[in-house]
C-alpha cells in the first residue's frame, strides 16, 4: 500500500514543484523576520549573489530551535541568546554568529489606561500594569519575544507565573495574533519593533515605552550541526550565514526600511552581541 502510495506521489510530481531542489536551503526563523518584510527584501539579494533559494519556515524562536534539533532545517535564525547558547552547547548547532539587533517596544492603548506616562523605564511600567491590573497579552509560546518578556518581569521583581491574575492573558500565538488581540481588547503587549512597524491593524494602539536598554533584541544565526544530521546542506547553509555577516549582507540589512525607518541594525562585528 505504502509503495503504491509512493508511486502515486511520484506520478503527482508533475503537478507539484520538485521536492528536493538543488541549490535550496531551509531556514527556520522567527515570525518577526518574515512579517517585518526583511526576508522578502534580503532573500532575492542573496539569491542574486549565490543562486541559492532560501525557504523560510517562520515560527517562534522555541519552535525554530526545535526544528533545528530534529534536523529539519539547515540554518536557524532566531532571537533569544540564552536559548541559542543552549542549542549550541547541546550540539544542535555548530557556531552562533551575531547578525543584527533591533529593540522591543511596549505597546498599549493610546489613552494610557495604566498611567505609564512618558516613562522610559520598562520595568517600572510593568510594575504599574500589574499594580493596576491592566490587561496584558503575553505570547506564551516560547518565542524570543516571550522569553524576553519573562526576563523583564523577573527584572521587575515579579514572579509572573505566581502573581498573574485574570488581567494577564497568555494566548500561545505569534506576534501578529498577539497584536490583534491587544488591539481588540485594549491591552498592553510586548512586541519587537519590526513587526510593530509593519503591522497593519494598529487600531488604537501606540508605543507606550521604548528606548530602555533592557529592551535590546539581538538576532543570531547558526548552522544546524551536520555531524548530527547528515541531511544538512552544510556548504549552502554556511554560505548563507557568511553572506549575512559579510559587509554586503550587513549593508543590505541596514538598507531595509519601512516608511524611511530602519528596522534592523547590523552588528555582526560586535564580539559581545
Amino acid at each position: 500500500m505504502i509503495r503504491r502510495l509512493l508511486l502515486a506521489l511520484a506520478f503527482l510530481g508533475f503537478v507539484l514543484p520538485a521536492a528536493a531542489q538543488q541549490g535550496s536551503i531551509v531556514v527556520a526563523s522567527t515570525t518577526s523576520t518574515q512579517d517585518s518584510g526583511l526576508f522578502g527584501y534580503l532573500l532575492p539579494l542573496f539569491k542574486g549573489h549565490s543562486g541559492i533559494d532560501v525557504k523560510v519556515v517562520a515560527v517562534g524562536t522555541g519552535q525554530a530551535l526545535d526544528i533545528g534539533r530534529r534536523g529539519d532545517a539547515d540554518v536557524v535564525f532566531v532571537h533569544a541568546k540564552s536559548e541559542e547558547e543552549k542549542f549550541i552547547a547541546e550540539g544542535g548547532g555548530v557556531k552562533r554568529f551575531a547578525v543584527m539587533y533591533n529593540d522591543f517596544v511596549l505597546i498599549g492603548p493610546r489613552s494610557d489606561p495604566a498611567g505609564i506616562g512618558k516613562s522610559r523605564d520598562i520595568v517600572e511600567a510593568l510594575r504599574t500594569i500589574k499594580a493596576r491590573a491592566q490587561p496584558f497579552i503575553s505570547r506564551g509560546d516560547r518565542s524570543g519575544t516571550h522569553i524576553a518578556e519573562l526576563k523583564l518581569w523577573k527584572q521587575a521583581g515579579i514572579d509572573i507565573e505566581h502573581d498573574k491574575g485574570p488581567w494577564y492573558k497568555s494566548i500561545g500565538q505569534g506576534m501578529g495574533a498577539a497584536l490583534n488581540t491587544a488591539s481588540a481588547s485594549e491591552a498592553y503587549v510586548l512586541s519587537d519593533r519590526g513587526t510593530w512597524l509593519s503591522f497593519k491593524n494598529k487600531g488604537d494602539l501606540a508605543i507606550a515605552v521604548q528606548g530602555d536598554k533592557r529592551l535590546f533584541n539581538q538576532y543570531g544565526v547558526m548552522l544546524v550541526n551536520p555531524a548530527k544530521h547528515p541531511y544538512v546542506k552544510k556548504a549552502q547553509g554556511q554560505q548563507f550565514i557568511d553572506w549575512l555577516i559579510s559587509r554586503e549582507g550587513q549593508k543590505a540589512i541596514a538598507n531595509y526600511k519601512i516608511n524611511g525607518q530602519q528596522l534592523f541594525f547590523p552588528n555582526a562585528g560586535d564580539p559581545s552581541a
Partner: protein
Amino acid sequence: MPEHLSALDLVLTGDPALFAIVRLSIAVSFSAVLLAAVLGVPLGAAIALSSFPGRDAAIVMLNAMMGLPPVVIGLVVYLALSHSGPLGAWGLLFTPQAMVIAQTILVTPIIAALARQTIEDLWLEYRDELTAMEVGPMRRIATLVWDARFSLITALLAGFGRAAAEVGAVIIVGGNIDGFTRTMTTAIALETSKGDLPLAIGLGLVLIAIVVAVNALAWALRRAAERLAG
C-alpha cells in the same frame, strides 16, 4: 505580495503570486482527493458488502474519523516525515508532497465513510439480483461502485471541501514557505497575523469562490454524464 493591495486588485491584475498560491491549493487538495478516492472507495465498498465480527464498531470508527482534527494529523505526519522520524530519509517535510500525504489521511475516512453508506444502500436494492447472477465479490463491488458513481461524486466533493478548507495540517507539514508551500488557507492565516485583515478576508472570498466553482463544475459534469447515460 505587494503591499496596500486588496484581494480584488490581486485578482483583477492577475497577480502571479496569488495565482501560484491558488494553483498550489488546488493541486494539493485535488491530488489528495484523488489518492483518497483510490483508497477510500474500495475500502467503503468492501465494508458495505462484508460481514465480520466488530463490523458495527468498525463503521462507528470510520464515521468518527471523518472528524479527525487536521492539526493532529499534521503533527503525526510532521513527526513521521521529520529527518529524526521513521520516514525522514524521504526528505519530504516542508514540501507540497507532505501536504498531499497529510490531506490524503484527512480525506480518506470521509470518502470511505460516505462511500460505505451509499454503496450499502444500493446493495440492499441490488442484493437479490446480484446474488442470483452469482457474480464474485470483486465484480459486485465494481458493479455497485459504477452504478453509484454519480452519488459518489458528492463524497469526493465533501472530501475536496474539507481538504481545501483546512489550515491546521498543511501549515505544520508544509511550513507555509513563500512561493513553495503557501496555500490559500496558510496565506489567509499569515495575512491575519500581519494585521492585514481586509486582504485576509479578500483571500477568504477568493477561496470560497474557488470551492463554489469546483462544485458547480462537478454538478455540470454530473448532469451531462447522467444525460449521456440516459
